[in-house]
C-alpha cells in the first residue's frame, strides 16, 4: 500500500482572487460535479485597545500542520462523497481586507459539498498549528485568539 503524498497547503502572503478563479476554472473538465462550496477567511481591521489591526502575520508549525491537514482531508473524504477538496492557508503577512484561508469542496450534489466545506473549515480552525499575530503598528501587536 502506497501512502498518499502530503500536499502543501501554505501560500506566502495573501491568497489572490486570481488563484481562486484559476482553481474554479480547473474544475470545468470535471463534468460530474454539480456543486462547489467555498469558504474564504478575510483579515479584519479590528479595533483593539492597542490600535487598529493593519495585518496579520501568520506562523505555523508547518510539518505538523501539513500532517494534520492530510489527516483531516482523509477523514472528510471518508465521510463525504466528494469529487475534490482544496485547502490554502496563508503564511507570513496578510494585510487587512485580504484573504488568508481558502477552502474548496466539490461534489455531485450541493448538500454534500456545503456540509463538507463547513466541517472542514471548523476542523482546520481548531486543529491546525497556525498562529496569527495581529499587527497594529511598527511595534504593536497582539496574538490572535480564535473564538
Amino acid at each position: 500500500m502506497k501512502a498518499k503524498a502530503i500536499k502543501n497547503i501554505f501560500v506566502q502572503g495573501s491568497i489572490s482572487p486570481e488563484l481562486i478563479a484559476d482553481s474554479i476554472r480547473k474544475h470545468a473538465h470535471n463534468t460530474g460535479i454539480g456543486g462547489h462550496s467555498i469558504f474564504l477567511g478575510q483579515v479584519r481591521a479590528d479595533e483593539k485597545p492597542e490600535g487598529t489591526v493593519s495585518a496579520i502575520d501568520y506562523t505555523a508549525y508547518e510539518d505538523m500542520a501539513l500532517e494534520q491537514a492530510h489527516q483531516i482531508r482523509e477523514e472528510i473524504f471518508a465521510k463525504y462523497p466528494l469529487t475534490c477538496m482544496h485547502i490554502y492557508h496563508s503564511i507570513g503577512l496578510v494585510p487587512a481586507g485580504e484573504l488568508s484561508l481558502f477552502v474548496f469542496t466539490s461534489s455531485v450534489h450541493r448538500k454534500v459539498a456545503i456540509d463538507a466545506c463547513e466541517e472542514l473549515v471548523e476542523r482546520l480552525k481548531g486543529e491546525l498549528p497556525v498562529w496569527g499575530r495581529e499587527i497594529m503598528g511598527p511595534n504593536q501587536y497582539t496574538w490572535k485568539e480564535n473564538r
Partner: protein
Amino acid sequence: MDGQQITILAFGKVAEKLGSEQLKASGFEDTDSLLRWLHDRYPALKEVDFSLAVDRKLVAGNTGLGMMCEVALLPPFSGG
C-alpha cells in the same frame, strides 16, 4: 538516556516567553520531567497556556520520550 537528542520547538507567544524558537535538550525520560526543567529554567512559561506535541502529534498527559524526538510547545491555535 545517554546520547538522547530532544529538539524543543516553541511557537507564537510561547516562543516569546522563552526568547527562542528552538532549544536542544537531553536526558529526559518523559514530558513531565522535561516540562519541570523548562519551567525551572524559564519561569515566564507559567504565564502562557500551551499544549504539547511529541513528534508532531498532540499528547495529553505524561508521555515517554525516545532517543531522538521533537517536542513542540503550542499556544492555542489561531489560524484561518
